[in-house]
């Protein structure tokens, strides 16, 4: 039987546990927090080993890459939703900044949306901004896992994300951006705040115009658009 159904018990619980919210204690976040607590103790159908990433400090660095890869079919694929469904809009928790739900976990910020006018991708971005602003359309690209099983085993082996940092021209130079920024315009979603992996956290989140100093390596973003095919050629080897 599919376990897609949401557990309405979360909605019926009193909201006294809003004290658990570390920040931005809005009602939807409160509901989500209660839901996440229930999820953690197994009252709602999240998947074993796929619950929200709690951030166990000792193993964070070792498991970050693994967790990250496990949620993506290949480098560049939209991550799956690692928790079950709950009644709040996605944007209640996944907003401009990451939200810590004390004792439960971290809801990373929405990485889509800060348009850098210098990006060659700018004209098409508003498409995704609109999408990310609404709850249901997050589901156009991000889907939950409601079962562990597969219909038939797959031999698909997706491109792996490199565990590399951006290279520097010289030791004092700012590192370059080693990944495409397409639909990841909000750099701080991953590189600052509680959701940032320590190894990629920025020391200077207050300087918000990241691309003033950090330039992308990815040629698709760096080079001018090529209008004929074949022509995009190869991406730089990871």
């Amino acid at each position, binding site marked *: 039987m*599919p*376990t*897609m*159904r949401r557990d*309405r018990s979360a909605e019926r619980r009193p909201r006294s546990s809003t004290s658990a919210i570390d920040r931005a204690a809005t009602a939807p976040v409160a509901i989500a927090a209660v839901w996440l607590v229930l999820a953690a103790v197994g009252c709602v159908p999240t998947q074993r080993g796929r619950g929200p990433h709690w951030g166990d400090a000792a193993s964070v660095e070792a498991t970050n890459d693994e967790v990250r890869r496990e949620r993506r*079919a*290949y*480098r560049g*694929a939209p991550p*799956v939703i690692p928790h079950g469904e709950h009644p709040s809009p996605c944007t209640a928790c996944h907003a401009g900044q990451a939200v810590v739900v004390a004792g439960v976990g971290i809801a990373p910020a929405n990485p889509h949306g800060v348009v850098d006018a210098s990006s060659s*991708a700018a*004209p*098409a971005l*508003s*498409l*995704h*901004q*609109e*999408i990310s602003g609404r709850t249901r*359309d997050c*589901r*156009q*690209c991000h*889907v939950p896992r*409601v*079962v562990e*099983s*597969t*219909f*038939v*085993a*797959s*031999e*698909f*082996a*997706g*491109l792996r994300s490199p565990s590399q940092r951006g*290279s520097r*021209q010289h030791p004092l130079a700012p590192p370059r951006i080693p990944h*495409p920024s*397409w*639909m990841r315009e909000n750099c701080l979603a991953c590189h600052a705040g509680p959701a940032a992996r320590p190894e990629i956290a920025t020391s200077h989140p207050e300087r918000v115009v990241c691309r003033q100093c950090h330039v992308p*390596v990815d*040629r*698709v973003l*760096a*080079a*001018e658009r*090529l*209008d*004929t*095919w*074949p*022509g*995009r*050629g*190869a*991406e*730089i*080897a990871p």
Partner: protein
Amino acid sequence: MSHFHRNLDRRHFLYALGAGGSAVVAFSCGDQERARAITERALTTDLGGVSWDKAPCRFCGTGCGVEVGVREGRVVAVRGDQAAPVNRGLLCVKGYHLPGFLYGEDRLRHPQRRRADGTLERIGWDEALDLVATEFGRTLDELGPDAVGMYGSGQWTVFDGYAALKWVKGGMRSNNLDPNARLCMASAVMGFMTQFQSDEPMGCYDDFEAADDFVLWGNNMAEMHPVLFSRILETKQRKPGTRLIDLGTRRTPTTDYADLYVEFRPGSDLALANGILHLLVRSGRIDRSFIAENVVFRRGIEDLDEIGFGCYGEQAERYTFQDTASVASFEEFAGFLEPYTPQRVGEISGVDPATIERLADVYGDLRRGTVSLWCMGVNQHTRGTWMNNLLNDLHLVTGKISRPGANPWSLTGQPSACGTAREVGTLSNRLPADMVVTNPEHRAKAEEIWGLEPGTINPKPGLHTVDLFRAFQRGEVRSLWIQTTNPWVSLPNLNRWRRQPGDGRFLVVSDIYPTPTTEVADLILPSAAWVEREGVFGNSERRTQQWHKMVEPPGEAMEDAQQIIEVARRMGMAHLFPWPDGENWHEPMFEEYRRFTLGIGKDLASYRQLQEARGLRWPVVDGRETRYRYAAGEDPYVTKREGVHFYKAKGYEQKAAVWLRPYHPPAEEPDEQYPFWLCTGRVLEHWHTGSMTRRVRELHQAVPAAYVEMNPADMTELGVQEGQPVRLRSRRGELVLPARSDAKGHAPRGSLFVPFFDESKLVNLLTLDAMDNISKEPDYKKCAVAVERA
């Protein structure tokens, strides 16, 4: 080390070097460059890099551009093509997880023949192809061309469809060739043909930025055409005042974004459209000069006693009904509409009369651009052609047609329903470029292009899909070949088609995975899919998109067109495919096919042009594509300075026909015994019968199984909780499914929705095989069922 693009400047060169990588940029002006690009691609592969090339998405009719990342001979990633005009870099979850569908563990890799005991044995290609040629040849000899058949697909590439058409119609002299697109958009074809005498939309996706109002007729775009829906949402954000009106029989994810949701009783859209026309005509909110200049009126047969539904066992004369047109006038049209008052339409449809007035206000505001969008809700309809006619009528009487942001818009569900089924003409009565087998001039043109003796092509139309399977069931069609489709999941009233292999008939199925259809096949042939072969698709907006082969197919899998060519050669029909063995025949085959399209307003771009472009919208004349057909200044065939010219409609003095089409009730309605409406359809995560998407881990894990969407009040009344099983029973079959009130959409009381992607929960056991008797398209959206606790 690499051949750099001449525009690659020093800065980018340094970037490339800095990363220690092998940036390869080549661009093509012909074979030499292409060969070099391939060599360089291979070179990068050796260096551990990923090479990228363009392709259209394999799934729906939107035709999103993707870039396909290949490493070591396997597809390892895709990304939305930012330069593709259709999707501009965005995809939906199916598109993002495209590569997974190629690599299911149970991919068919070798031909397999069924033994007498029902088990399968692996055989070689030579033996398999000889077997097909022998069986089809023997049937032709013994029973003639009416006893062979081929059932194809709107997922066939242009090459597959063209090869099939040539083999069946030019080689075997049979017209028993039909695509699964018959189940999908045949009503839209008949709508366009009866009104414009030329198939396919006049508008293009640019309408999604240009329109002021979007009216969705039974169309859940947020799940079915998500990327196009994103364009609408973007327009809504950018242009405040843009309105989205959702007309449907259930609330869907699309409804969440609608400015107005109108829920109507199933099948009453016919009344609703006539009700809007009634108000427009009565209040004079019509474009009289447009009508005078561009429109004629026609009336068909309306008597319910003469028009049946084509159900199994129905009397033949109602089933073989042929519509005939009689000339009508504007006055007759106005008189015909008189009874469709808001009150009466309200009674039929359950829509509040004031809301009908609001809908008329949308269409009747002649300053605003209106786009009507529809897909399966209107097409899979026992009066689907009529419904298509009425929607086109709404745009013709208001003059909201053939200009940016004002068009009737029929969307398609398969990647080449337009390119292959409609344009190549793999339908039982068709030849390429809208030509038909019943017309001697059309046959002569095809015979001339194909180099065949005059009189070769059979003038008798073949069997349409449902009839083809009925004839196969009866044994009248003895040899049938199915490619790229899964009818034992997708046909209505599935219990009718049960079969045991070895019953004297011969069924060949070409596919990429085992399906319920391969289970009943006598011979299974493994096909190459998507970028495992070269191909061309045509999307909903007349955009023809080409891609190259990028990886080898698994095992011995072979592209569908090549399978047909090999069989034809074994049947002594090598003259149909005169291209030397071992050479790439794709370009010469396309250029031959292209001859059908030139000079008649259906002109396709040259193969070279298509290799370079991210698709081009036909007619392509002098290298330029056409955004708006029939429009002065846009369509190269229109010589007028302004306005429109429906130059293809020679039968209507080059005007478009407005048809008078009445309301008819559905073939089956809920009653005491079967009190619920049943509607079937899709979900965002899965595509068609799920044979591809269910093998993609992320998609399967998101929606692993079918369910029945039910109103919470009905569930309470029945005493079932969320997720508990219920048994659905119709007059034709039964099925147990978990009940859900909050899955995707929201069913109104007395109404159920079941997705059809799940081969272990075959909802088509319940559906009725009632058809639109003009298009012969079945109605999967309306039948009556009973529900009980299971």
